[in-house]
Protein backbone atom coordinates (compact mmCIF):
# COMPACT_ATOMS: atom_id res chain seq x y z
CA UNK A 1 0.00 0.00 0.00
CA UNK A 2 1.35 3.38 -0.94
CA UNK A 3 -0.52 5.17 1.79
CA UNK A 4 1.64 3.56 4.42
CA UNK A 5 4.83 4.57 2.71
CA UNK A 6 3.84 8.23 2.36
CA UNK A 7 4.65 10.43 5.26
CA UNK A 8 1.74 11.97 7.09
CA UNK A 9 0.77 15.36 5.70
CA UNK A 10 2.25 14.78 2.27
CA UNK A 11 -1.06 13.77 0.76
CA UNK A 12 -2.78 16.71 2.33
CA UNK A 13 -0.22 18.94 0.69
CA UNK A 14 -1.03 17.60 -2.76
CA UNK A 15 -4.77 17.95 -2.16
CA UNK A 16 -4.55 21.61 -1.21
CA UNK A 17 -5.66 24.04 -3.91
CA UNK A 18 -2.61 25.52 -5.58
CA UNK A 19 -4.29 28.00 -7.91
CA UNK A 20 -7.43 30.05 -7.91
CA UNK A 21 -9.82 29.64 -10.83
CA UNK A 22 -10.15 33.38 -11.43
CA UNK A 23 -11.86 33.10 -14.82
CA UNK A 24 -14.46 30.83 -13.31
CA UNK A 25 -15.12 33.19 -10.43
CA UNK A 26 -15.45 36.17 -12.76
CA UNK A 27 -17.90 34.26 -14.94
CA UNK A 28 -20.03 33.22 -11.98
CA UNK A 29 -20.06 36.83 -10.81
CA UNK A 30 -21.13 37.99 -14.26
CA UNK A 31 -24.03 35.55 -14.22
CA UNK A 32 -25.18 36.82 -10.87
CA UNK A 33 -24.86 40.44 -12.02
CA UNK A 34 -27.01 39.80 -15.09
CA UNK A 35 -29.70 38.30 -12.94
CA UNK A 36 -29.56 41.17 -10.46
CA UNK A 37 -29.69 43.74 -13.28
CA UNK A 38 -32.85 42.19 -14.73
CA UNK A 39 -34.46 41.99 -11.32
CA UNK A 40 -33.46 45.54 -10.46
CA UNK A 41 -34.94 47.01 -13.65
CA UNK A 42 -38.16 45.13 -13.08
CA UNK A 43 -38.24 46.07 -9.41
CA UNK A 44 -37.66 49.77 -10.09
CA UNK A 45 -40.34 49.84 -12.78
CA UNK A 46 -42.93 48.15 -10.65
CA UNK A 47 -42.20 50.04 -7.43
CA UNK A 48 -42.20 53.31 -9.34
CA UNK A 49 -45.58 52.59 -10.88
CA UNK A 50 -46.98 51.37 -7.59
CA UNK A 51 -45.81 54.53 -5.85
CA UNK A 52 -47.53 56.71 -8.44
CA UNK A 53 -50.64 54.64 -9.02
CA UNK A 54 -51.60 53.31 -5.63
CA UNK A 55 -52.63 56.73 -4.25
CA UNK A 56 -55.31 56.84 -6.96
CA UNK A 57 -56.77 53.59 -5.66
CA UNK A 58 -56.44 54.87 -2.11
CA UNK A 59 -58.33 58.01 -3.01
CA UNK A 60 -61.04 56.67 -5.29
CA UNK A 61 -61.16 52.98 -4.39
CA UNK A 62 -62.73 50.68 -6.94
CA UNK A 63 -64.32 53.67 -8.58
CA UNK A 64 -61.31 53.74 -10.94
CA UNK A 65 -62.21 50.26 -12.11
CA UNK A 66 -65.92 50.87 -12.56
CA UNK A 67 -65.99 54.35 -14.10
CA UNK A 68 -66.07 55.03 -17.80
CA UNK A 69 -63.55 57.04 -19.73
CA UNK A 70 -63.68 60.77 -19.27
CA UNK A 71 -61.65 63.80 -20.15
CA UNK A 72 -61.95 64.88 -16.52
CA UNK A 73 -59.25 63.08 -14.53
CA UNK A 74 -61.33 62.94 -11.37
CA UNK A 75 -64.02 60.90 -13.14
CA UNK A 76 -62.00 58.86 -15.62
CA UNK A 77 -62.04 55.09 -15.07
CA UNK A 78 -60.95 51.86 -16.66
CA UNK A 79 -64.27 50.00 -16.89
CA UNK A 80 -64.51 50.07 -20.68
CA UNK A 81 -60.91 48.96 -21.04
CA UNK A 82 -61.41 46.06 -18.64
CA UNK A 83 -64.51 44.95 -20.51
CA UNK A 84 -62.75 45.33 -23.87
CA UNK A 85 -59.71 43.38 -22.70
CA UNK A 86 -61.92 40.65 -21.25
CA UNK A 87 -63.91 40.37 -24.47
CA UNK A 88 -60.73 40.17 -26.50
CA UNK A 89 -59.38 37.49 -24.16
CA UNK A 90 -62.50 35.41 -24.71
CA UNK A 91 -62.39 35.86 -28.46
CA UNK A 92 -58.69 35.11 -28.74
CA UNK A 93 -59.13 31.99 -26.59
CA UNK A 94 -62.02 30.77 -28.68
CA UNK A 95 -60.29 31.44 -31.99
CA UNK A 96 -56.56 31.05 -31.56
CA UNK A 97 -56.45 28.17 -29.06
CA UNK A 98 -58.41 25.54 -31.01
CA UNK A 99 -56.98 26.57 -34.35
CA UNK A 100 -53.43 26.70 -33.08
CA UNK A 101 -53.57 23.45 -31.10
CA UNK A 102 -55.18 21.55 -33.96
CA UNK A 103 -52.56 22.87 -36.36
CA UNK A 104 -49.81 21.82 -33.98
CA UNK A 105 -51.27 18.31 -33.65
CA UNK A 106 -51.44 18.04 -37.40
CA UNK A 107 -47.88 19.23 -37.89
CA UNK A 108 -46.47 16.96 -35.21
CA UNK A 109 -48.52 13.80 -35.50
CA UNK A 110 -50.06 13.64 -38.94
CA UNK A 111 -48.10 15.67 -41.47
CA UNK A 112 -45.78 13.60 -43.64
CA UNK A 113 -42.13 14.50 -43.13
CA UNK A 114 -41.64 16.16 -46.50
CA UNK A 115 -40.50 19.48 -47.92
CA UNK A 116 -44.02 20.88 -47.76
CA UNK A 117 -44.31 20.32 -44.02
CA UNK A 118 -40.89 21.80 -43.42
CA UNK A 119 -41.87 24.82 -45.49
CA UNK A 120 -44.95 25.39 -43.35
CA UNK A 121 -43.02 24.84 -40.17
CA UNK A 122 -40.36 27.40 -41.04
CA UNK A 123 -42.96 29.94 -42.14
CA UNK A 124 -44.95 29.61 -38.96
CA UNK A 125 -41.77 30.29 -37.02
CA UNK A 126 -41.11 33.36 -39.16
CA UNK A 127 -44.65 34.59 -38.65
CA UNK A 128 -44.11 34.53 -34.91
CA UNK A 129 -41.37 37.11 -35.42
CA UNK A 130 -43.39 39.51 -37.56
CA UNK A 131 -43.93 42.86 -35.75
CA UNK A 132 -47.40 43.15 -34.30
CA UNK A 133 -48.13 46.38 -36.13
CA UNK A 134 -48.01 44.41 -39.37
CA UNK A 135 -50.80 42.22 -38.05
CA UNK A 136 -52.67 45.42 -37.27
CA UNK A 137 -52.43 46.43 -40.91
CA UNK A 138 -53.58 42.98 -41.94
CA UNK A 139 -56.54 43.24 -39.58
CA UNK A 140 -57.37 46.64 -40.98
CA UNK A 141 -57.25 45.43 -44.55
CA UNK A 142 -59.05 42.13 -44.07
CA UNK A 143 -61.26 42.06 -40.97
CA UNK A 144 -62.32 45.71 -40.81
CA UNK A 145 -63.12 45.59 -44.52
CA UNK A 146 -65.04 42.35 -44.01
CA UNK A 147 -67.26 43.70 -41.23
CA UNK A 148 -67.76 46.94 -43.09
CA UNK A 149 -68.90 44.89 -46.06
CA UNK A 150 -71.39 43.16 -43.77
CA UNK A 151 -72.54 46.62 -42.75
CA UNK A 152 -71.72 46.01 -39.08
CA UNK A 153 -71.11 49.60 -38.07
CA UNK A 154 -67.88 50.92 -39.51
CA UNK A 155 -66.22 47.55 -39.10
CA UNK A 156 -64.08 48.77 -36.24
CA UNK A 157 -65.43 46.68 -33.40
CA UNK A 158 -64.24 44.25 -30.81
CA UNK A 159 -64.72 41.35 -33.25
CA UNK A 160 -62.11 42.72 -35.64
CA UNK A 161 -59.84 43.36 -32.68
CA UNK A 162 -60.25 39.79 -31.46
CA UNK A 163 -59.67 38.34 -34.91
CA UNK A 164 -56.54 40.41 -35.37
CA UNK A 165 -55.07 39.43 -32.02
CA UNK A 166 -55.99 35.79 -32.62
CA UNK A 167 -54.09 35.80 -35.90
CA UNK A 168 -51.25 37.62 -34.19
CA UNK A 169 -50.68 34.95 -31.55
CA UNK A 170 -51.63 31.99 -33.70
CA UNK A 171 -48.00 31.25 -34.68
CA UNK A 172 -46.97 31.49 -31.05
CA UNK A 173 -49.71 29.09 -29.98
CA UNK A 174 -48.77 26.66 -32.75
CA UNK A 175 -45.09 26.72 -31.86
CA UNK A 176 -45.55 26.25 -28.13
CA UNK A 177 -48.21 23.56 -28.58
CA UNK A 178 -46.02 21.76 -31.13
CA UNK A 179 -43.12 21.82 -28.70
CA UNK A 180 -45.27 20.40 -25.93
CA UNK A 181 -46.41 17.62 -28.25
CA UNK A 182 -42.86 16.92 -29.37
CA UNK A 183 -41.83 16.60 -25.73
CA UNK A 184 -44.05 13.54 -25.33
CA UNK A 185 -41.62 10.60 -25.46
CA UNK A 186 -41.76 8.49 -28.56
CA UNK A 187 -41.97 5.41 -26.34
CA UNK A 188 -45.52 6.45 -25.46
CA UNK A 189 -46.53 6.54 -29.11
CA UNK A 190 -44.86 3.20 -29.77
CA UNK A 191 -46.55 1.61 -26.80
CA UNK A 192 -49.91 2.86 -28.02
CA UNK A 193 -49.42 1.71 -31.58
CA UNK A 194 -48.01 -1.58 -30.33
CA UNK A 195 -51.28 -2.22 -28.52
CA UNK A 196 -53.22 -1.79 -31.72
CA UNK A 197 -54.33 1.79 -31.21
CA UNK A 198 -55.10 3.81 -34.31
CA UNK A 199 -53.39 7.13 -34.84
CA UNK A 200 -56.51 8.93 -33.66
CA UNK A 201 -56.61 6.84 -30.49
CA UNK A 202 -52.94 7.45 -29.80
CA UNK A 203 -53.38 11.18 -30.27
CA UNK A 204 -56.63 11.41 -28.38
CA UNK A 205 -55.86 9.15 -25.43
CA UNK A 206 -52.10 9.44 -25.06
CA UNK A 207 -50.54 12.43 -26.78
CA UNK A 208 -53.08 15.13 -25.91
CA UNK A 209 -53.37 14.22 -22.20
CA UNK A 210 -49.60 14.01 -21.90
CA UNK A 211 -49.00 17.27 -23.74
CA UNK A 212 -51.91 19.16 -22.20
CA UNK A 213 -49.98 20.90 -19.39
CA UNK A 214 -47.37 22.21 -21.80
CA UNK A 215 -49.98 23.24 -24.34
CA UNK A 216 -52.04 25.06 -21.72
CA UNK A 217 -49.04 26.88 -20.32
CA UNK A 218 -47.92 28.02 -23.75
CA UNK A 219 -51.32 29.17 -24.86
CA UNK A 220 -52.03 31.12 -21.69
CA UNK A 221 -48.68 32.89 -22.01
CA UNK A 222 -49.50 33.69 -25.64
CA UNK A 223 -52.83 35.08 -24.50
CA UNK A 224 -51.20 37.36 -21.95
CA UNK A 225 -48.94 38.65 -24.69
CA UNK A 226 -51.98 39.38 -26.89
CA UNK A 227 -53.69 41.31 -24.11
CA UNK A 228 -50.73 43.63 -23.78
CA UNK A 229 -50.66 44.55 -27.48
CA UNK A 230 -51.34 48.17 -28.34
CA UNK A 231 -50.29 48.91 -31.91
CA UNK A 232 -52.51 46.46 -33.79
CA UNK A 233 -55.54 47.47 -31.75
CA UNK A 234 -54.98 51.14 -32.57
CA UNK A 235 -54.85 50.22 -36.25
CA UNK A 236 -58.01 48.15 -36.24
CA UNK A 237 -59.97 50.83 -34.48
CA UNK A 238 -59.73 50.64 -30.73
CA UNK A 239 -60.78 54.01 -29.40
CA UNK A 240 -58.20 56.45 -28.10
CA UNK A 241 -60.09 58.95 -26.07
CA UNK A 242 -63.45 58.68 -24.45
CA UNK A 243 -66.67 57.32 -25.81
CA UNK A 244 -69.98 56.32 -24.38
CA UNK A 245 -71.61 52.97 -24.85
CA UNK A 246 -74.92 51.69 -23.66
CA UNK A 247 -73.23 48.59 -22.29
CA UNK A 248 -75.61 46.28 -24.16
CA UNK A 249 -74.14 43.18 -25.81
CA UNK A 250 -74.73 44.55 -29.31
CA UNK A 251 -73.06 47.77 -28.34
CA UNK A 252 -70.16 45.94 -26.81
CA UNK A 253 -69.49 43.83 -29.88
CA UNK A 254 -70.31 46.23 -32.70
CA UNK A 255 -69.83 49.63 -31.18
CA UNK A 256 -66.64 51.43 -30.24
CA UNK A 257 -64.33 49.66 -27.83
CA UNK A 258 -61.02 50.08 -26.12
CA UNK A 259 -58.57 47.94 -24.14
CA UNK A 260 -56.32 48.53 -21.14
CA UNK A 261 -53.06 49.12 -23.06
CA UNK A 262 -54.83 51.67 -25.24
CA UNK A 263 -56.14 53.58 -22.25
CA UNK A 264 -52.66 53.55 -20.80
CA UNK A 265 -51.26 54.93 -24.02
CA UNK A 266 -53.99 57.55 -24.27
CA UNK A 267 -53.70 58.73 -20.69
CA UNK A 268 -49.94 58.85 -20.85
CA UNK A 269 -50.05 61.52 -23.56
CA UNK A 270 -52.79 63.62 -21.99
CA UNK A 271 -51.56 67.08 -20.94
CA UNK A 272 -53.20 67.24 -17.51
CA UNK A 273 -50.87 66.39 -14.67
CA UNK A 274 -53.56 64.31 -12.91
CA UNK A 275 -53.44 61.76 -15.69
CA UNK A 276 -49.87 60.78 -14.74
CA UNK A 277 -51.14 59.01 -11.66
CA UNK A 278 -54.07 57.57 -13.58
CA UNK A 279 -51.65 56.15 -16.17
CA UNK A 280 -49.80 54.37 -13.41
CA UNK A 281 -53.09 53.05 -12.08
CA UNK A 282 -53.92 51.69 -15.54
CA UNK A 283 -50.47 50.08 -15.75
CA UNK A 284 -51.01 48.42 -12.39
CA UNK A 285 -54.32 46.95 -13.57
CA UNK A 286 -52.78 45.79 -16.84
CA UNK A 287 -49.84 44.20 -15.00
CA UNK A 288 -52.24 42.53 -12.60
CA UNK A 289 -54.20 41.01 -15.50
CA UNK A 290 -51.05 39.75 -17.18
CA UNK A 291 -49.57 38.42 -13.95
CA UNK A 292 -52.84 36.70 -13.20
CA UNK A 293 -52.72 34.93 -16.56
CA UNK A 294 -49.10 33.92 -16.02
CA UNK A 295 -49.80 32.67 -12.53
CA UNK A 296 -52.65 30.63 -13.92
CA UNK A 297 -50.29 29.17 -16.53
CA UNK A 298 -47.74 28.24 -13.87
CA UNK A 299 -50.46 26.72 -11.74
CA UNK A 300 -51.63 24.59 -14.65
CA UNK A 301 -48.11 23.44 -15.37
CA UNK A 302 -47.46 22.41 -11.79
CA UNK A 303 -50.85 20.86 -11.38
CA UNK A 304 -50.65 18.58 -14.40
CA UNK A 305 -46.93 18.22 -14.87
CA UNK A 306 -45.90 14.64 -15.50
CA UNK A 307 -42.66 12.85 -15.00
CA UNK A 308 -41.51 10.37 -17.59
Amino acid at each position, binding site marked *: MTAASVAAGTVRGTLRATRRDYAGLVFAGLLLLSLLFTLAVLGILISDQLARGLPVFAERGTDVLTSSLSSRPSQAGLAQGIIGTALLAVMVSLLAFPLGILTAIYLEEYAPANRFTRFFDINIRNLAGVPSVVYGLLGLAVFVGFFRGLDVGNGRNVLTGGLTLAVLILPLVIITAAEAIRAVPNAIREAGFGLG*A*SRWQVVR*KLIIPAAAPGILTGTVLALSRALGETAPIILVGGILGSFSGSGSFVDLTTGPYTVLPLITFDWARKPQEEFRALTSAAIIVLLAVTLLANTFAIYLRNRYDRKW
Partner: protein
Amino acid sequence: MVTARPDPTDNPTHDQGDPMSTTLRQPPIVEPPPQRAVTLDVTGRGPAGEPAPRSAESPEAAPGPIIELKDVSFYYGSFRAVKEISIDIATNRITALIGPSGCGKSTLLRAINRMNDLIPGTRLEGSVLYHDEDLYASYVDPVEVRRRIGMVFQKPNPFPKSIFDNVAFGPRITGFKGDLAGLVEDSLRRAAIWDEVKDKLQQSGLSLSGGQQQRLCIARAIATEPEIILMDEPCSALDPRATLQIEELMTELKQRYTIIIVTHNMQQAARTSDRTVFLNMAEDRAGYVVEQSDTIQIFTNPKNQLTEDYVSGRFG
Protein backbone atom coordinates in the same frame (compact mmCIF):
# COMPACT_ATOMS: atom_id res chain seq x y z
CA MET B 1 -16.77 -18.37 -21.32
CA VAL B 2 -18.99 -21.29 -20.57
CA THR B 3 -22.13 -21.43 -22.61
CA ALA B 4 -25.21 -21.96 -20.54
CA ARG B 5 -26.98 -25.10 -21.57
CA PRO B 6 -30.68 -25.09 -22.01
CA ASP B 7 -32.54 -27.51 -19.82
CA PRO B 8 -33.23 -30.43 -22.13
CA THR B 9 -36.53 -31.22 -20.44
CA ASP B 10 -37.72 -27.78 -21.34
CA ASN B 11 -37.00 -28.54 -24.92
CA PRO B 12 -39.15 -31.29 -26.26
CA THR B 13 -38.03 -32.64 -29.56
CA HIS B 14 -40.56 -31.81 -32.14
CA ASP B 15 -40.49 -32.25 -35.82
CA GLN B 16 -41.53 -29.28 -37.84
CA GLY B 17 -43.81 -31.38 -39.98
CA ASP B 18 -45.62 -30.08 -42.98
CA PRO B 19 -46.59 -26.49 -42.31
CA MET B 20 -49.83 -26.95 -44.21
CA SER B 21 -51.06 -29.89 -42.21
CA THR B 22 -50.18 -28.28 -38.90
CA THR B 23 -51.82 -24.99 -39.69
CA LEU B 24 -54.96 -26.86 -40.60
CA ARG B 25 -55.18 -28.08 -37.04
CA GLN B 26 -55.14 -24.53 -35.75
CA PRO B 27 -58.44 -22.95 -34.89
CA PRO B 28 -59.59 -20.69 -37.71
CA ILE B 29 -58.26 -17.53 -36.23
CA VAL B 30 -57.51 -15.30 -39.13
CA GLU B 31 -60.29 -13.80 -41.09
CA PRO B 32 -60.11 -10.82 -43.38
CA PRO B 33 -60.50 -7.48 -41.57
CA PRO B 34 -64.25 -7.00 -42.21
CA GLN B 35 -65.08 -9.78 -39.75
CA ARG B 36 -63.19 -8.04 -37.03
CA ALA B 37 -65.83 -8.52 -34.38
CA VAL B 38 -65.49 -12.25 -34.80
CA THR B 39 -61.73 -12.32 -34.80
CA LEU B 40 -61.48 -10.21 -31.69
CA ASP B 41 -63.19 -12.95 -29.77
CA VAL B 42 -60.84 -15.69 -30.86
CA THR B 43 -59.99 -16.61 -27.34
CA GLY B 44 -63.57 -17.35 -26.50
CA ARG B 45 -63.19 -15.38 -23.33
CA GLY B 46 -66.31 -15.69 -21.26
CA PRO B 47 -67.97 -12.79 -19.50
CA ALA B 48 -66.17 -13.66 -16.31
CA GLY B 49 -62.91 -13.03 -18.08
CA GLU B 50 -62.05 -16.68 -17.74
CA PRO B 51 -60.02 -17.62 -20.76
CA ALA B 52 -60.88 -20.68 -22.73
CA PRO B 53 -58.05 -22.94 -23.83
CA ARG B 54 -56.46 -21.61 -26.95
CA SER B 55 -56.08 -24.97 -28.56
CA ALA B 56 -57.29 -28.41 -27.81
CA GLU B 57 -53.84 -29.73 -28.43
CA SER B 58 -51.18 -29.85 -25.83
CA PRO B 59 -48.38 -27.43 -26.59
CA GLU B 60 -46.02 -30.38 -26.63
CA ALA B 61 -47.57 -31.72 -29.79
CA ALA B 62 -45.46 -30.27 -32.56
CA PRO B 63 -47.16 -26.96 -33.22
CA GLY B 64 -46.83 -25.62 -36.73
CA PRO B 65 -45.61 -22.20 -37.78
CA ILE B 66 -47.83 -19.30 -36.87
CA ILE B 67 -45.55 -16.83 -38.63
CA GLU B 68 -43.58 -17.51 -41.75
CA LEU B 69 -41.13 -14.97 -43.06
CA LYS B 70 -40.45 -15.62 -46.69
CA ASP B 71 -37.54 -13.93 -48.40
CA VAL B 72 -38.00 -10.82 -46.31
CA SER B 73 -35.79 -7.87 -47.10
CA PHE B 74 -36.32 -4.63 -45.28
CA TYR B 75 -35.22 -1.19 -46.40
CA TYR B 76 -34.75 2.10 -44.63
CA GLY B 77 -34.80 4.32 -47.68
CA SER B 78 -32.20 2.78 -49.94
CA PHE B 79 -30.39 1.00 -47.12
CA ARG B 80 -31.20 -2.67 -46.88
CA ALA B 81 -31.21 -3.59 -43.21
CA VAL B 82 -31.98 -7.29 -43.57
CA LYS B 83 -31.96 -9.45 -46.67
CA GLU B 84 -33.74 -12.55 -47.83
CA ILE B 85 -34.77 -13.70 -44.41
CA SER B 86 -36.86 -16.85 -44.21
CA ILE B 87 -37.91 -17.99 -40.77
CA ASP B 88 -40.71 -20.18 -39.46
CA ILE B 89 -42.04 -19.24 -36.04
CA ALA B 90 -43.59 -22.18 -34.22
CA THR B 91 -46.86 -21.78 -32.31
CA ASN B 92 -46.63 -21.66 -28.51
CA ARG B 93 -42.89 -21.65 -28.62
CA ILE B 94 -40.33 -19.07 -27.67
CA THR B 95 -38.15 -18.13 -30.60
CA ALA B 96 -35.03 -16.11 -29.87
CA LEU B 97 -33.39 -13.83 -32.42
CA ILE B 98 -29.74 -13.42 -31.58
CA GLY B 99 -26.86 -11.81 -33.37
CA PRO B 100 -24.36 -8.95 -33.15
CA SER B 101 -25.49 -5.33 -32.84
CA GLY B 102 -26.79 -3.81 -36.03
CA CYS B 103 -27.64 -7.11 -37.71
CA GLY B 104 -31.31 -6.19 -37.99
CA LYS B 105 -32.86 -8.29 -35.22
CA SER B 106 -35.08 -5.50 -33.97
CA THR B 107 -35.95 -4.42 -37.49
CA LEU B 108 -37.03 -7.94 -38.28
CA LEU B 109 -39.03 -8.20 -35.06
CA ARG B 110 -40.83 -4.95 -35.71
CA ALA B 111 -41.57 -6.00 -39.27
CA ILE B 112 -43.72 -8.80 -37.88
CA ASN B 113 -46.34 -6.49 -36.37
CA ARG B 114 -45.74 -3.70 -38.86
CA MET B 115 -44.33 -1.30 -36.28
CA ASN B 116 -41.84 -0.23 -38.91
CA ASP B 117 -44.71 1.28 -40.86
CA LEU B 118 -44.46 4.20 -38.44
CA ILE B 119 -41.02 5.07 -39.76
CA PRO B 120 -41.29 7.01 -43.01
CA GLY B 121 -39.36 5.75 -45.99
CA THR B 122 -39.28 2.10 -45.01
CA ARG B 123 -40.23 -0.77 -47.27
CA LEU B 124 -40.49 -4.53 -47.04
CA GLU B 125 -39.94 -7.05 -49.77
CA GLY B 126 -40.99 -10.66 -49.53
CA SER B 127 -43.86 -11.71 -47.35
CA VAL B 128 -44.71 -12.12 -43.70
CA LEU B 129 -47.38 -14.80 -43.36
CA TYR B 130 -49.56 -15.05 -40.28
CA HIS B 131 -51.74 -18.14 -40.43
CA ASP B 132 -50.92 -18.13 -44.13
CA GLU B 133 -52.23 -14.58 -44.56
CA ASP B 134 -49.82 -12.00 -45.89
CA LEU B 135 -49.63 -9.23 -43.30
CA TYR B 136 -48.34 -6.83 -45.92
CA ALA B 137 -51.21 -7.37 -48.35
CA SER B 138 -52.76 -4.10 -49.43
CA TYR B 139 -56.06 -4.75 -47.65
CA VAL B 140 -54.46 -5.47 -44.27
CA ASP B 141 -54.90 -2.82 -41.59
CA PRO B 142 -51.71 -2.60 -39.51
CA VAL B 143 -53.81 -1.62 -36.51
CA GLU B 144 -55.56 -5.00 -36.69
CA VAL B 145 -52.21 -6.74 -37.06
CA ARG B 146 -50.87 -5.11 -33.90
CA ARG B 147 -53.94 -6.16 -31.95
CA ARG B 148 -53.08 -9.77 -32.68
CA ILE B 149 -49.33 -9.42 -32.43
CA GLY B 150 -48.47 -7.49 -29.29
CA MET B 151 -45.17 -5.95 -28.37
CA VAL B 152 -43.00 -5.42 -25.32
CA PHE B 153 -40.23 -2.87 -25.70
CA GLN B 154 -36.66 -2.62 -24.60
CA LYS B 155 -37.25 0.16 -22.12
CA PRO B 156 -40.32 -0.31 -19.95
CA ASN B 157 -42.78 2.26 -21.26
CA PRO B 158 -45.91 2.35 -19.12
CA PHE B 159 -48.29 5.18 -19.92
CA PRO B 160 -48.36 8.04 -17.41
CA LYS B 161 -51.65 6.62 -16.18
CA SER B 162 -52.72 4.42 -13.30
CA ILE B 163 -51.73 0.76 -13.25
CA PHE B 164 -55.32 -0.18 -13.92
CA ASP B 165 -55.66 2.22 -16.85
CA ASN B 166 -52.41 0.96 -18.32
CA VAL B 167 -53.72 -2.57 -18.55
CA ALA B 168 -57.23 -1.46 -19.50
CA PHE B 169 -55.94 0.69 -22.35
CA GLY B 170 -55.89 -2.03 -24.99
CA PRO B 171 -59.31 -3.53 -24.15
CA ARG B 172 -60.83 -0.06 -24.02
CA ILE B 173 -59.63 0.98 -27.45
CA THR B 174 -60.89 -2.26 -28.94
CA GLY B 175 -64.31 -1.60 -27.43
CA PHE B 176 -64.17 -4.41 -24.88
CA LYS B 177 -67.60 -4.85 -23.34
CA GLY B 178 -67.39 -7.06 -20.34
CA ASP B 179 -65.81 -7.37 -16.97
CA LEU B 180 -62.93 -4.97 -17.43
CA ALA B 181 -61.79 -5.27 -13.82
CA GLY B 182 -61.72 -9.05 -14.20
CA LEU B 183 -59.74 -8.80 -17.40
CA VAL B 184 -57.24 -6.42 -15.81
CA GLU B 185 -56.80 -8.70 -12.81
CA ASP B 186 -56.44 -11.72 -15.04
CA SER B 187 -53.82 -10.00 -17.19
CA LEU B 188 -51.86 -8.81 -14.16
CA ARG B 189 -51.98 -12.31 -12.70
CA ARG B 190 -50.71 -13.85 -15.90
CA ALA B 191 -47.90 -11.31 -15.94
CA ALA B 192 -47.01 -12.41 -12.39
CA ILE B 193 -47.36 -8.94 -10.94
CA TRP B 194 -50.87 -9.04 -9.44
CA ASP B 195 -49.76 -9.65 -5.86
CA GLU B 196 -47.41 -6.69 -5.99
CA VAL B 197 -49.92 -4.19 -7.35
CA LYS B 198 -53.35 -5.40 -6.28
CA ASP B 199 -53.55 -2.84 -3.48
CA LYS B 200 -52.43 0.10 -5.59
CA LEU B 201 -54.14 -0.24 -8.93
CA GLN B 202 -54.91 3.48 -8.98
CA GLN B 203 -51.31 4.51 -8.52
CA SER B 204 -49.29 5.62 -11.50
CA GLY B 205 -47.64 2.88 -13.52
CA LEU B 206 -44.51 4.99 -13.38
CA SER B 207 -44.30 4.57 -9.61
CA LEU B 208 -43.25 0.93 -10.03
CA SER B 209 -39.69 -0.36 -10.23
CA GLY B 210 -38.17 -1.11 -13.63
CA GLY B 211 -38.84 -4.83 -13.43
CA GLN B 212 -42.39 -4.25 -12.26
CA GLN B 213 -42.92 -1.71 -15.04
CA GLN B 214 -41.81 -4.25 -17.60
CA ARG B 215 -44.19 -6.88 -16.21
CA LEU B 216 -46.90 -4.23 -16.24
CA CYS B 217 -46.12 -3.69 -19.91
CA ILE B 218 -46.41 -7.43 -20.47
CA ALA B 219 -49.76 -7.43 -18.66
CA ARG B 220 -50.81 -4.53 -20.84
CA ALA B 221 -49.80 -6.43 -23.95
CA ILE B 222 -51.64 -9.63 -23.01
CA ALA B 223 -54.78 -7.75 -21.98
CA THR B 224 -55.58 -7.32 -25.67
CA GLU B 225 -55.39 -11.09 -26.07
CA PRO B 226 -52.77 -11.24 -28.77
CA GLU B 227 -51.67 -14.56 -30.19
CA ILE B 228 -48.09 -13.51 -30.47
CA ILE B 229 -45.95 -11.35 -28.22
CA LEU B 230 -42.87 -9.71 -29.64
CA MET B 231 -40.23 -8.82 -27.09
CA ASP B 232 -37.46 -6.45 -28.07
CA GLU B 233 -34.67 -7.00 -25.53
CA PRO B 234 -37.21 -6.85 -22.69
CA CYS B 235 -34.62 -7.33 -19.96
CA SER B 236 -31.77 -5.14 -21.13
CA ALA B 237 -32.78 -2.33 -18.78
CA LEU B 238 -33.42 -4.64 -15.82
CA ASP B 239 -31.33 -6.04 -13.01
CA PRO B 240 -30.60 -9.80 -12.85
CA ARG B 241 -33.40 -10.54 -10.41
CA ALA B 242 -36.03 -8.76 -12.49
CA THR B 243 -34.57 -10.44 -15.56
CA LEU B 244 -35.04 -13.84 -14.00
CA GLN B 245 -38.65 -12.99 -13.15
CA ILE B 246 -39.34 -11.98 -16.74
CA GLU B 247 -37.71 -15.15 -18.02
CA GLU B 248 -39.80 -17.32 -15.74
CA LEU B 249 -42.82 -15.40 -16.87
CA MET B 250 -42.00 -16.06 -20.51
CA THR B 251 -41.90 -19.78 -19.89
CA GLU B 252 -45.34 -19.51 -18.29
CA LEU B 253 -46.70 -17.41 -21.08
CA LYS B 254 -45.74 -19.74 -23.87
CA GLN B 255 -48.55 -22.07 -22.83
CA ARG B 256 -50.90 -19.50 -24.33
CA TYR B 257 -48.83 -17.26 -26.53
CA THR B 258 -46.19 -17.51 -29.15
CA ILE B 259 -43.21 -15.43 -28.12
CA ILE B 260 -40.48 -14.00 -30.28
CA ILE B 261 -37.68 -12.36 -28.36
CA VAL B 262 -34.70 -10.35 -29.47
CA THR B 263 -31.89 -10.62 -26.99
CA HIS B 264 -28.23 -9.77 -26.66
CA ASN B 265 -27.96 -12.07 -23.73
CA MET B 266 -26.83 -15.48 -24.91
CA GLN B 267 -27.68 -17.17 -21.63
CA GLN B 268 -31.13 -15.72 -21.82
CA ALA B 269 -31.68 -17.18 -25.26
CA ALA B 270 -30.34 -20.51 -24.08
CA ARG B 271 -32.40 -20.55 -20.90
CA THR B 272 -35.72 -19.46 -22.25
CA SER B 273 -36.11 -20.17 -25.93
CA ASP B 274 -37.09 -23.30 -27.79
CA ARG B 275 -35.90 -22.13 -31.16
CA THR B 276 -33.03 -19.80 -31.91
CA VAL B 277 -32.33 -17.84 -35.04
CA PHE B 278 -28.81 -16.53 -35.41
CA LEU B 279 -28.44 -13.49 -37.62
CA ASN B 280 -25.25 -11.87 -38.76
CA MET B 281 -24.32 -8.81 -40.71
CA ALA B 282 -23.08 -9.29 -44.25
CA GLU B 283 -20.44 -7.20 -45.99
CA ASP B 284 -23.13 -4.76 -47.20
CA ARG B 285 -24.31 -4.35 -43.56
CA ALA B 286 -27.53 -6.20 -44.30
CA GLY B 287 -28.56 -8.82 -41.76
CA TYR B 288 -29.02 -12.41 -42.89
CA VAL B 289 -29.84 -15.70 -41.21
CA VAL B 290 -26.78 -17.80 -40.52
CA GLU B 291 -28.51 -20.64 -38.79
CA GLN B 292 -31.87 -21.40 -37.25
CA SER B 293 -32.62 -24.47 -35.26
CA ASP B 294 -33.72 -25.78 -31.91
CA THR B 295 -32.00 -23.77 -29.24
CA ILE B 296 -30.20 -26.77 -27.83
CA GLN B 297 -28.81 -27.47 -31.25
CA ILE B 298 -27.59 -23.90 -31.74
CA PHE B 299 -25.87 -23.80 -28.40
CA THR B 300 -24.43 -27.31 -28.22
CA ASN B 301 -23.94 -28.45 -31.74
CA PRO B 302 -24.14 -25.57 -34.21
CA LYS B 303 -23.69 -26.47 -37.83
CA ASN B 304 -22.09 -23.20 -38.81
CA GLN B 305 -18.69 -22.09 -37.58
CA LEU B 306 -19.92 -18.49 -37.27
CA THR B 307 -22.70 -19.60 -34.97
CA GLU B 308 -20.29 -21.50 -32.83
CA ASP B 309 -17.96 -18.52 -32.60
CA TYR B 310 -20.83 -16.23 -31.68
CA VAL B 311 -22.51 -18.39 -29.04
CA SER B 312 -19.19 -19.18 -27.45
CA GLY B 313 -18.40 -15.47 -27.20
CA ARG B 314 -15.59 -15.32 -29.74
CA PHE B 315 -17.20 -12.43 -31.63
CA GLY B 316 -20.20 -10.14 -31.52
